[in-house]
């Protein structure tokens, strides 16, 4: 692997971050929320990229982590008064982590397709539990709560506006990105990539492959849970729909569209997907089955553009 010119990378990074900081000041309310949402979905997709792109395991169960993050945050906000932002994040992460430990322990015994299927089935288990356990989770209706204030404990506390919320989300997503980037470039990340390339050989060299896989699933689940917390805080509710399989499916689509194994790609994919969806429903009306053309685009991209939008752009720039 050749070392990339680091300065170009950091310049590009700073420009994008600067644009994202300025964006809410320029954009109207609707697009401001839209952009924040893309960042949140992007974080979810990025967390799943750690598995798909780096460890080589496709997870069809990220909705479980996302949903548990949501319900964890909801629990903290509803149980503790006044609602505390950091406690919500902590609870959400704890919820996601416990689910992730459970899923990781069982599903990493299996490879490839089996992993994909078992993660899907696990997410459905949690969906069924949340959907039917009405007394605790609110069942089909979900839970509604008020937005916690942004606070620095004992010093300062202020209500979120859509702009400050955007900055907060941006900060969390950027931080997560930097952490994940560091992880993938660390020796640990290198082992994950070698598992993707050749699992038997990695085992033969002496790495405890299962342990690495468990840690990577847990790490991925943790960040997925974080995105669930952010979504809950932005939208002030937790609903079983988000634990349903469709959320996991969307996550995979974001990854493939944006480009797997790039971390930034999935965010691009999420943006691309949401923009296309918005565009289609503006042109053809709300009832338009936007997933038909989007699904077709998805299939075409798998066949002809397996490296995704970002990979395509990279190759085109390098030419």
């Amino acid at each position: 692997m050749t070392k990339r010119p680091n300065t170009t990378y950091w310049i590009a990074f700073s420009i994008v971050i600067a644009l994202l900081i300025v964006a809410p000041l320029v954009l109207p309310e609707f697009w401001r929320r839209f952009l924040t949402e893309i960042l949140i979905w992007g974080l979810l997709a990025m967390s799943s990229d750690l598995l798909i792109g780096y460890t080589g395991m496709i997870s069809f169960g990220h909705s479980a982590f996302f949903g548990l993050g949501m319900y964890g945050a909801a629990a903290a906000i509803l149980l503790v008064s006044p609602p505390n932002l950091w406690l919500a994040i902590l609870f959400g992460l704890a919820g996601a982590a416990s689910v992730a430990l459970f899923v990781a322990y069982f599903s990493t015994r299996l490879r490839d397709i089996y992993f994909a299927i078992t993660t899907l089935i696990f997410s459905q288990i949690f969906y069924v539990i949340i959907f039917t356990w009405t007394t605790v989770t609110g069942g089909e209706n979900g839970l509604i709560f008020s937005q916690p204030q942004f606070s620095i404990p004992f010093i300062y506390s202020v209500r979120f506006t859509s702009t400050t919320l955007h900055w907060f989300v941006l900060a969390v997503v950027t931080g997560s990105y930097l952490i994940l980037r560091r992880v993938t470039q660390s020796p640990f990340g290198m082992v994950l990539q070698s598992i993707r390339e050749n699992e038997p050989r990695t085992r033969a060299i002496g790495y405890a492959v299962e342990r690495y896989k468990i840690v990577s699933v847990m790490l991925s689940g943790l960040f997925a849970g974080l995105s669930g917390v952010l979504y809950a805080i932005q939208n002030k509710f937790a609903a079983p729909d988000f634990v349903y399989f469709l959320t996991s499916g969307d996550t995979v689509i974001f990854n493939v569209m944006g480009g797997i194994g790039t971390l930034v790609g999935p965010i691009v994919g999420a943006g691309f997907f949401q923009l296309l969806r918005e565009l289609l429903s503006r042109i053809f009306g709300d009832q338009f089955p936007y997933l038909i053309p989007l699904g077709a685009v998805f299939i075409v991209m798998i066949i002809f553009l397996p490296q995704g939008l970002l990979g395509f752009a990279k190759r085109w720039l390098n030419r």
Partner: protein
Amino acid sequence: MDAIVHFFQYIPLDQLLIQTVNGIVTGMILALVASGLTLIFGIMDVVNFAHGELFMLGAYIGVIVLTATGSFWLALIVASLVVAILGAALQVVTLRPLLGRDPLNTILATFGISLVLQNFALWQFGPVSRKINEPITSHFILFYLEYPWYRILITALSAAIIGGLWLFLKYGKYGVWIRATTQDRVMAQAMGIPVPWVHTGVFALGAGMAAASGVLFGPLVGVNPTMGLDWVLKAFIVVVIGGMGNLGGSVAAAIFISLLESYASIWVSPAQAVIVSFVVLILTLLFRPTGLFVPTPK
């Protein structure tokens, strides 16, 4: 201790028997769905995510033909044929270009297909459930229940289709091609078997079987656009428990799972009974990840 004795004394025997019959009926339908899935997997390493949608589409075509002609059996045949042709077309367009790539690409592609088909059905037919009328309406008495003969009939029909498939694989000329391709793709190609067309044929066969089970099962629950996901999930569980690519194991696992769920639904709601099969899956993964119904690997 008393509570346990009490529990066992009050297991309603008649209900147990009724649920056994119910379990076998759904088990055979599930076996029909899962055997198509496992056949496709065994021959081309493709986990067909769209299998549930083919099932659902088959049921819808059944509804359409049934309302047009009034003949259930015609609906069954037409639905199977149409979905088989659709399956062949889908395989040629989306899966053939992916041949030789990482099998994970194919699971993504079939996932894309399932998205498109499901939303197409939702768009065309709406979210409301449609009903297929049973071709036979007579009943027989099972304890205090009037049990429809139709359920017994679909069990027999499913068994006949699976048996036919087995015979075809064992003795038919093309069946031998299919088995040869499963065993060694390259060698089969060298012997002059048109492997890509075998793939297409098997996909069509699996799709047709899914459609047939969709039409057969339609009268029991009604037809709606999201029925596919429930079934594909169950079929996945069956295929993992039965051992991937193992036809006999899939049939056994399908009946096993359905029986367990039927018994569980004596005490809990059917929505929660699903969890039983999830638990069986987890136990299988823990203790015997190659599948419950396969001989122990040497």
